[in-house]
Structures are given as C-alpha cells and as structure tokens.
C-alpha cells in the first residue's frame, strides 16, 4: 500500500512526514515541498510525475540522503535519516540506496566493470566476491560482453543499464531513479523499463522513480503526482 495522507502503518519501509523543502533564491524563498507525506511498503514500484519544477528531483534527493529537508522527517527501514550528517549519511547511502540518474553518471575513466564495482568497494567483500557480484549484475542487465568497455564506447541505453547494474550490485534497500529514460530513445527506454519492471516483479526490489513519460509510469504499480508541494494519487494509482 502506498499512502500520501501520512497515516500509513509504522511498518512501512519508507515513511515521510510533513516534509518541507525551501530554497533561498536571493531574498526570495521558494517553497518546493510543503508538508509532504508518503508511505511506501517494501517491494513497491512507485512512479512520481508532475510538471517541470514541481520538486520531483528535490524529493528524490531528500529520500536518498543527498540533501537535507527544511522540516519534517524521513524514516527508511526504521532509520531516521534527517538527523544523520556527513560521513554517517554517506555510509547510510552506501548501504541502503541505489541511484539511477537521467544522465547515467558513469565515471568516464572507468570501464563498465569498474563502474559497477564501485559500490562494492564500500562493502567488506573481497576481490573475488566483488568480481562475482559485478558479473552477476552485468549479466542481469544483459551486458556480460561489455565488461571492459568504457562509457563512451556504449550507447545511451547500454550506459543506463550499466548504471542500473551499479545501483543494484550492492543489494540496496531501495532504488531511486530520476527520469531513467529521460535521455533515451523509445526502444532503449523500453528496455530500461522492462529491466526495472523485472527488478520489481522478479526480485522484489522497492523502486521509487521520477518520470515524465506516461509509458514508463504505466509500468509502476502506483503513480503519484506532485502538485503544489504535495503528493496526490494519480489516475493510475492503486
């Protein structure tokens, strides 16, 4: 069950309560998120939609511990992250979050294999175990034959699949995807969405995804709209 009224049960994986985010632009305050509530249970696939500038990326950044809210709280798997800072938050991200960005954000000087290995460098896994995990992840996204390719030698769709492999390789608590198909052609977008769908259905991954693409949103179990700083359930919602 996904809820946006702040009345979810305490067992929900993600609990957001009265979240405010205000940016200071010069002397002007921009209230992007205003008293936003959200409850997401384990294994759900949620799509966030909304017009440009409505705060979707802002919300995802807050959920992923990349930024701190002005007010309110975010609890993930029992950990309240809004009070963590610096290195602690970094360690939390390494353990719990897998990011997928619109622009893939692979490191250009590292191969596909090395990019996917990065999150594992923050675990206790030894070299051999890391190799095994990376190979499994790249196999999952259908790129076992591109281990030694650099990002510039891959197509956009392939890059995004490598980045998905990187997001799942350390088995995080949830995936945060910000317009994962935003920069892809229709065919590649379809492949990426099929992949996310499979991660949700087959592997029970919890996925929170921002998208402008209704076709992509269709694949999610729940579609939420961000309007005036709050989430509302959309037509496709469950």
């Amino acid at each position, binding site marked *: 069950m996904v809820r946006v009224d702040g009345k979810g049960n305490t067992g929900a994986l993600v609990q957001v309560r009265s979240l405010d985010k205000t940016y200071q632009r010069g002397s002007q305050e921009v209230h992007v998120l205003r008293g936003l509530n959200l409850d997401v249970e384990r294994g759900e696939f949620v799509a966030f939609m909304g017009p440009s500038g409505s705060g979707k*990326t*802002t919300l995802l*950044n807050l959920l*992923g511990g*990349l*930024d701190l809210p002005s007010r309110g709280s975010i609890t993930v798997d029992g950990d309240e992250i809004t009070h963590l800072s*610096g*290195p602690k938050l*970094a*360690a*939390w*991200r*390494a*353990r719990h*979050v897998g*990011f997928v*960005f619109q*622009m893939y*954000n692979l*490191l*250009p*000087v*590292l191969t596909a294999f*090395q990019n996917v290995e*990065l*999150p594992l*460098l*923050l675990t206790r896994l030894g070299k051999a175990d890391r190799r095994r995990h990376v190979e499994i992840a790249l196999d999952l996204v259908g790129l076992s034959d591109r281990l030694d390719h650099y990002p510039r030698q891959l197509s956009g769709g392939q890059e995004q699949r490598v980045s998905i492999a*990187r997001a799942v390789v350390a088995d995080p608590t949830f995936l945060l995807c910000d317009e994962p198909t935003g920069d892809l052609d229709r065919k590649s977008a379809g492949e990426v969405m099929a992949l996310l769908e499979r991660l949700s259905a087959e592997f029970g991954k919890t996925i929170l995804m921002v998208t402008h693409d209704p076709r992509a949103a269709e694949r999610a179990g729940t579609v939420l709209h961000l309007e005036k700083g709050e989430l509302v359930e959309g037509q496709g919602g469950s």
Partner: protein
Amino acid sequence: MSIPLLYTIRSVRARWASNLIAVLGIAGVVAVFVAMMAMARGFQRTLVESGSPMNAIVTRGGATTEMESVVTLEQEKIIADAAGVARSADGRPLVSGEVVVVTAFHHKRTNSDALAQVRGVSEDALRVHDGVHIVRGRFLRPGLAELVAGKNASDMYTGFQLGDTPRFGGRTWTVVGIMDSGGSAFDSEVWADAVVLNQTYKRPADIFSSVTVRLTSPAAFSAFKSALSADPRLTVQADRERDYYAKQSGAVSTMIRVLGFLVAFIMGIGAVFGAFNTMYSAVSARSREIATLRALGFRPGSVVLAFLAESMVISLAGGLLGCLAALPFNGLTTDALNWQTFSQLAFAFRVTPGLLAWGLAFALFMGFWGGLLPSIRAARLPIATALREL
C-alpha cells in the same frame, strides 16, 4: 575502502593537457632546485675529497687556512719524527712541507684575472698526496722553476698547457707536467718547488705554510695529534686532512644551498599556484563525477584523499621530469671563487640519487599544498546541486 587509485591515475591521464602546465611548473622548480643542490654538493665534495683519510695537515695553532699559517723547517723535522707518521721503504718519513701563494692568472672563461693557488711542495708530495697523478709530462725537479699544473687549472687559465712558460712572481716558469687528482681541489692548483717558490716571493727559505703527513693508518691520527700537542717545542695544530678541507667548503656551499632554497622557494610558490589552478579546474570540471561518488556513499574524506592523490600524481610527474632535466648537469664542470682560500675552485655538479629523492619529495610537497584546498572544496561540494550540473 577508498576511491580507487586507478580512478585518480586515469583522470590525470584523461586531463593531461590541462595538467601539463602544472607538471611543467613543478618540473622547472625541481630542475633548478636539484641543479643548485648538485652545485653545492659538487663544490663541497671537491674539497672534502681533496683530503685523504690517511693524511693529517699541520698548521700553526689558531690558523684557519694555510695562508695564515707558518710552520718552520725545524718544526717540520719534529713533526716528521712524531708517532703515527708513515715511512717510505727506505725509512724516510712521508711528509710534505708546503707553501701556498695566491696569485692572479688570466681566467679564460671570464677573460679577466682570477686568483689561483700556487702550492710549493716537497719531493715527496706525490707520495703523501697519493690521489694525485701526473697524467702528462713529468713531476717537477727540486731547485728548478718548473710547474705541474692541475688539469682544471690548465684548462681555466691562459698559459698553463704542457710546455707553456707562464710568468709570475717576477720570473718565468715552465709547465713540465699536468696532474689529475680525480676532481679534487688540487686539480685547480699549480704546483712548484717549495724552496723555489719561497725564493721567488722573497720569503725565508726555512718556512712552510703547512706540513701534510701520511699516517700509518687513519686510526693513527689521535696518537699523532697527541704527540704534537705534548711536545713543548711545537705550537701547532693537527687536523685530519678531510676535516680541514671540509671546513673550507662550508661558507660557499652553504651560500649556494641557501640561494638554491631561496630560488626554489620563490619559484615553488608559483608552481604551487599552478597546481592549485589545475586542481581547482579539475574539481569544477568534474563536480558531477564527484557528486556521483558521494551519492554512491564515498565519504568526504575519501574524496579529499582521491584529489590529493591526483595532485600528488601530477606533481610526481613534474618531479620526475624535473629530475630528468637536472640529470645532464651531473659531471658538468664549472668554477667559482672559494672565499675561504681566496682562489678559484673548479668543481663538477653532482646529481646524486639522494638529491633526486629530495627533488621528488619537494615536488610532492608542492603537489600537496597546491591540491589541498581544491580537494577540500571537492569534498564539500553540495551533492544535490552538483548532480544538476551538466
């Protein structure tokens, strides 16, 4: 674990063109630094190596150089009989009473007069100074106005080739030999017969500037020294020849070193700014990469380390290049005035492995300071903002 070094090295390579300025800046400083230190070292080693561990030099008590010193013939005889003095096969003590005169010769490189040391020596000089070898011609004969020129003196001054007849001290001399002491200070000297030199400069015949003795072993020095100080007829001091020459190198080599540090320091500030600039633009250009690493969970400290490492890799490249540029200086001969003897000394630059290591350390030092602030900035980059950058 930290951000892999591979990332650092590959990033340096990927941005090699913009790193080049920082590399060249650091290379320049290191080259100058190593060359100056090699000069100071060469100057010092030249003098230190003039002394043999087997020899002791006796001068008048309180004298700091041979030129201020007077030792009489009578004293020389007592010194020759002292404990610890080696003897030749026929039982003669191996001592060389020597007179030093400083006089001006025409210096080819500067086309002006420069001061040179002319050393009056005894017959046994070559046996006492066993590092000195006649490489052309022969040794001088006692009682004659003959000269043996050090190979550097012969090159430095006009009229000191084999067979030349230079004029100084009011008489004409003949160069009958060229000597080579393997790069020591003797190579910058001109040797004459001690008695003839005293006559020429109207000095008493029975007076020396110093007496150099060959010891039976380096360990015999203390016995020799105490024998001299115990003798009431003597008011002389004995030094190990090495120590004596090492002291002569102090002022000038220290001056070259201080100058070297000063120049390197000033240039170094420029190079540190070069490294700073390069690293700063690297951080700006790669802020989205940094934000990605941070998003993946790498800690701020890891980012600092990664970018410091990057700065150090750049400076190491600069350091290696600088060392390479300084290497050809090794063995290059030049000459400078040694204030302590008031005479020109030829010496070779010495680029040693130790100096190169210092050069590299200096490069890394510059890289560290140039990279520190940009690295901290990288770690402090607000992740959410940096991720929005294209």
